[in-house]
């Protein structure tokens, strides 16, 4: 349905409140994002700080950290994902019901961070999970996490059930579960999910070379 802003504001002036089911639905969803209660490293400490009185994540409706993936909407990957831990993180994501979202919090979850070239650290959770919001920092301040959460809320508020801009969970072609990698002799097998991870070119473009 086409949203006529002019008509809506005219009606509001006359004391008639109009909205759409989609907007109402998204308004409700975006203000009750329940995160999964798990942390991987020092970023988790900042996440805990964000949930306490001083930063108070409950102002955004996300104070309900659920210890079960079955009750969670949001996975905050807070910290270094080691190759040993990565299959469990993917499995937890698979166990979450739709609609579900992923925040990669901190340098390690985004790219491996300072441990990127190490033998035991995953070079970013985005090679196994579809990440909605990346929060840079080492670790990010609680304000940064709140900012990332607000970015996610805006994304949820803009989601449509159908059409070309439909939400991920409304798209039948997008899987809700991703294959769990296995532990190999040196690395995870496969080391990345080629369907969702778009690598940088192996040789850098001409403009970056010197």
């Amino acid at each position, binding site marked *: 349905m086409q949203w006529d802003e002019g008509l809506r504001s005219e009606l509001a002036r006359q004391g008639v409140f109009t909205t759409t089911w989609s907007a109402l639905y998204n308004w409700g969803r975006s203000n009750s994002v329940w995160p999964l209660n798990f942390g991987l490293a020092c970023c988790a400490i900042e996440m805990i700080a964000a949930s306490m009185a001083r930063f108070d994540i409950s102002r955004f409706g996300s104070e309900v950290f659920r210890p079960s993936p079955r009750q969670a909407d949001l996975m905050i990957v807070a910290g270094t994902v080691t190759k040993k831990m990565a299959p469990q993180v993917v499995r937890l994501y698979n166990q979450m019901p739709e609609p579900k979202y992923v925040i990669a919090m901190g340098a390690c979850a985004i790219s491996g961070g300072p441990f990127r070239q190490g033998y035991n650290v995953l070079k970013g959770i985005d090679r196994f999970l579809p990440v909605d919001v990346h929060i840079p920092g080492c670790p990010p301040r609680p304000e940064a996490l709140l900012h990332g959460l607000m970015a996610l809320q805006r994304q949820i508020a803009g989601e449509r059930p159908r059409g070309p801009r439909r939400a991920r969970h409304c798209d039948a072609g997008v899987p809700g579960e991703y294959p769990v990698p296995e532990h190999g002799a040196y*690395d995870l097998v496969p080391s990345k999910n080629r369907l969702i991870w778009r690598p940088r070119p192996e040789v850098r473009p001409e403009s970056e070379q010197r």
Partner: protein
Amino acid sequence: MEPLDLIRERLGAAVPGAAIEVVPNPAVAEQSSLRVDPGHAVAVARVLRDEAFWQFDYCSNVTGVDWPEAILREPVRLRRLINGVEREVVSIVERRRPGCLEVVYHLYSMRLGHGPLILRQRTDNRVDQVRVASLTPVWRSAEFQEREVYDLFGVVFEGHPDLRRILMWEGFQDHPMRKDYVEPDDYEYEPTPHDDVLVKARRHYPVGGGG
């Protein structure tokens, strides 16, 4: 705590046949240590824990050291006849140091408030003779740390109740903390490589060198 030489003598008397050696530390800290042979390590550890005037009841730290085989060049002072005059000359002698793995235990006494006593065990080589005695039956706190040394250095602890990898997964190959560990060649682009990573970047990006 008495000096190490005295401890060594008393231990030698308490555990007959044990080869105990004082390993001096020439650095400023002067934290010298005792090295025991793996065959008598458990007996020596029990004496250290139970003897009334030592009572090392707390093993705070277990760690490993990798000594790869090396050619050491050491100066040796010799007296030689040069032009009919006897003189002292310094000549460089090359010595082959065989490779081995070492396990280091830091012991404290909570009751008597002394320590640390540093206890070492050595394996015969780095390839197939990599067994030492586990001291977990003596100090339970050594259990996970001995597993870590096994995981990262490949030292096999005989008598350990549950010797599995602890940091890396089952099925992982090699022992990553060894000096000659070759990590998998899975370099990926990063914008500001430096040091060892720069060398890797040059291998992967021949033009420009990734600097």
